[in-house]
């Protein structure tokens, strides 16, 4: 046991908490820089504590590697991580996400034309969205083979229902007054759809798209636990866990975290561009 590390770790966490407390209750507490500073500083504090605990208590690397060891592994094996990233994220998750989103949107437009279908499909869709859909991974791996196609198929099914339910909900979001106005313009079904109802539905659609970003990555990674070629993030995680090379596992988790947050951030950014008119996007609150 190494007390210097432990003392240093707790001292720095205390110091950071104190500074955060001062900043959060201080004069400039509503400024953007403060809002960025406090969480980032808190995260750094946690990382320091983690490092200090691992070093100070001498935790073996097969149980919990230190952040520095994870970072070393990350920078040393970027080529492997990149291959895995392309296999799982670009080929599996992203292609499945796009296909699933398009399919869900098309079905939503179809469902929306018939009230009967909507009343029948919406409860079923809501029900499916709450199920552990990830369980179909072994079946789809059996059907579509070990390569990325089966992962994309899992992702398609996983993202389909949240996007479908949200889109159908969104297509109903227009008010009677607005639809009547389109009618007085003698607008056709398609004109009403593309000029009024689809734009009105976009906040709902993006809600579904944002939920689906995380699901897509989870689906692609977990599907690889059921069989994959010798590359991919899920494959790497399951095999490196078996070899107790936990620094590599954490490096993959770091990649997954970065990819997941970036994917979510990208969709949120597009949402801000597309639905700038919606009250939830107003700045200054």
């Amino acid at each position, binding site marked *: 046991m190494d007390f210097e590390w432990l003392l240093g770790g707790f001292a720095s966490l205390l110091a950071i*908490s104190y500074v955060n407390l001062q900043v959060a209750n201080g004069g400039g507490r509503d400024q953007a820089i403060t809002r960025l500073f406090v*969480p980032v500083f808190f*995260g750094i504090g946690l990382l320091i504590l983690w490092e200090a605990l691992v070093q100070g208590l001498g935790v073996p690397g097969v149980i919990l590697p230190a952040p520095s060891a994870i970072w070393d592994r990350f920078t040393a094996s970027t080529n492997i991580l990149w291959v895995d990233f392309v296999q799982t994220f670009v080929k599996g998750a992203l292609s499945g996400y796009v296909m699933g989103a398009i399919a869900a949107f098309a079905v939503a437009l179809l469902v929306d034309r018939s009230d009967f279908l909507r009343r029948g499909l919406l409860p079923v869709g809501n029900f499916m969205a709450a199920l552990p859909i990830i369980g179909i991974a072994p079946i789809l791996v059996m059907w579509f083979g070990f390569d990325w196609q089966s992962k994309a198929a899992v992702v398609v099914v996983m993202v389909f229902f949240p996007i479908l339910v949200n889109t159908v909900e969104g297509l109903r979001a227009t008010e009677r007054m607005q639809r009547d106005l389109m009618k007085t313009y003698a607008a056709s079904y398609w004109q009403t759809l593309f000029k009024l109802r689809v734009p009105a539905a976009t906040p709902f659609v993006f809600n579904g798209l944002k939920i689906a970003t995380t699901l897509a990555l989870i689906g692609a990674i977990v599907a690889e636990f059921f069989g994959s070629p010798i590359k991919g993030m899920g494959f790497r*995680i399951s095999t490196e866990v078996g070899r107790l090379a936990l620094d590599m596992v954490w490096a993959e988790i770091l990649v997954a975290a970065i990819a997941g947050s970036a994917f979510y951030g990208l969709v949120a950014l597009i949402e801000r561009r597309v639905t700038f008119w919606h009250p939830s996007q107003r700045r200054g609150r």
Partner: protein
Amino acid sequence: MSDAAIASSSGGFGTGARAVWDVVLPVVVVVAVIIGAWYVACVPMNIKEALTQAERAGAVVEPAGAKERRDMSAVGLALANSAYARDTLNQERPRLPAPHQVGQELWNTTGGMVLNGKAFSKRSLIYHGWVTLSATVLGFAIGTVAGVGLAIGIVHSRVMNMAVMPWAIASQTIPILAIAPMIIVVLNSIGVTGLLPKALISAYLSFFPVAVGMVKGLRSPDNMQLDLLSTYSASQSETFWKLRLPSSMPYFFTSMKIGMAASLVGAIVGELPTGAVRGLGARLLAGSYYGQTVQIWAALFAAAILAAVLVGVIGLLQRMTLKKMGMVH
């Protein structure tokens, strides 16, 4: 609307039955169509295997020889050999088992075993479902308590709100499930085995939805209501118990539903890396190792039923609680 008005003039019962029918009929039709499509899909999915077996048994199929059939389209084969369509629905290891096969397997491994007095044998889905259920519920309880605790802290402490809340939201975008195998293996290696490792994954997954939902809920009273309590010179704890907590209830139940669904997924995925010993996740993995497709589908439906029941129970609690509080009628 006018239909309902006419019906109500002819008696209260008619309205109720009609309203229920309006809700149920579309769902029943959609489910029936899905099951029908499933049966139809079974034929081309399983036709090649069915024809190979029929040929081995001495029947004449078109065209002869598995090699010739290998590159043909499944739909074309099914049309050319429509006599063997029945065989595709009753195979031992089909690519796509028919609905009645899955139902049969579900019954054989649950109700059938109860009738034989072997409800908790290792081949019964009740046993495996119970293993998964206990991990799910334990993890859900831990996650919910921790999530509510964090939410209370966030609502009452400015610095916690600024420091922790962004991480709580950002963590939702990270595929946490990916670390499930690692947690299991690491906890096993330091001697923690059995229920707890899986429950911890479930707890972790249900923790953030509950925390984020509860923060929203505890903040849902508007300024007018908060001002009123401050004119009463209510203390912070009084404000919490009399205003914030009651008004957070709808959010609480909604986030509990999400948390429960996430918990179940966590428990199932947590069962994968332990080498397919017990639990619904283990049934899935074992089924995929040995090509027991019917077993996979049965486990999948058991998981679906479990999810529906768990979420349904929370929904029921929600209705009862909110009704008692006068929030819904």
